[in-house]
């Protein structure tokens, strides 16, 4: 029988708000567009990582969501770097940045391909940014699917624990396209590795969904 897994922390960013474990921890006083909102949130949490400003919008969203969880519970402090994994999904891949990049090459008379935009034209670069900042060396995979396929993610994450490929996993969905954005990331680990299980939630599809819509 496989070991019980629990969700120890989760973070959601949507609609100008940041919530950690269901509690609102940041909200813009007035409604702002994503670039202004994410910059204000970054500054609010006093994260000192200048490379943040060079990231594309998708990476900024994923990075900040992960950072909120990691600030609360840094898995690299408790597990080997190669035992921490990141599995993320969305439906629009890096399309938002792909479009930005295409603007730099569409006009033959103004043809200046931007290298710094080009490097973000893959969604797994976002995972790379989280891994680089936090020295996470474990399995990392990005899936593209039309809907937030919780059952699939549950099976995949369960499998990497069962096959001993990870001891701790950050997983979830980071979606951004134009003005629309929403992210939810969860930190899951074995119940035996939890010191305080009072606030933890059993890792199962129903609970993943419940935390997502809460």
């Amino acid at each position, binding site marked *: 029988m496989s070991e019980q897994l629990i969700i120890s922390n989760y973070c959601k960013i949507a609609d100008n708000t940041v919530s950690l474990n269901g509690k609102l921890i940041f909200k813009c006083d007035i409604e702002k567009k994503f670039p202004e909102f994410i910059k204000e949130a970054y500054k609010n949490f006093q994260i000192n990582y*200048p490379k943040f400003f*060079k990231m594309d919008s998708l990476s900024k969203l994923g990075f900040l969501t992960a950072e909120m969880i990691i600030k609360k519970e840094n898995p690299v402090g408790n597990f080997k770097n190669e035992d921490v994994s990141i599995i993320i999904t969305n439906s629009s891949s890096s399309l938002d940045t792909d479009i930005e990049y295409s603007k730099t090459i569409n006009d033959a008379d103004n043809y*200046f*391909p*931007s*290298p*710094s935009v080009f490097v973000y034209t893959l969604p797994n670069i976002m995972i790379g940014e989280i891994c680089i900042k936090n020295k996470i060396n474990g399995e990392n995979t990005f899936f593209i699917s039309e809907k937030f396929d919780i059952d699939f993610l549950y099976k995949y994450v369960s499998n990497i624990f069962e096959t001993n490929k990870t001891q701790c996993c950050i997983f979830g969905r980071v979606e951004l396209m134009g003005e629309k954005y929403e992210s939810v990331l969860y930190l899951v680990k074995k119940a035996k590795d939890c010191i305080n299980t009072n606030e933890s939630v059993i890792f199962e599809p129903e609970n993943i969904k419940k935390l997502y819509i809460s």
Partner: protein
Amino acid sequence: MEELILKLKSEIIEALNLEEMSVDDIDSEAPLFIEGLGLDSIDALELTVLLEKKYALKIQTADEGKKILYSVKSMAEYISQNKK
């Protein structure tokens, strides 16, 4: 030259998204890479594009690039000597 250096610093801040920097934070003679601003290889490419886009100047070789992109001052000198 001072005017060009100032303009170049603003353009670098914008092109490289150096959000938390102002023109006063950039030492004109300090190395742009590793030390100084701590720029990386993607930034080098972006500066190459900046020279081409804003000043119609194309860096031809990697060795030439190393010299031209050494500092803001070296970039400004290259622009003033070669701008058509």
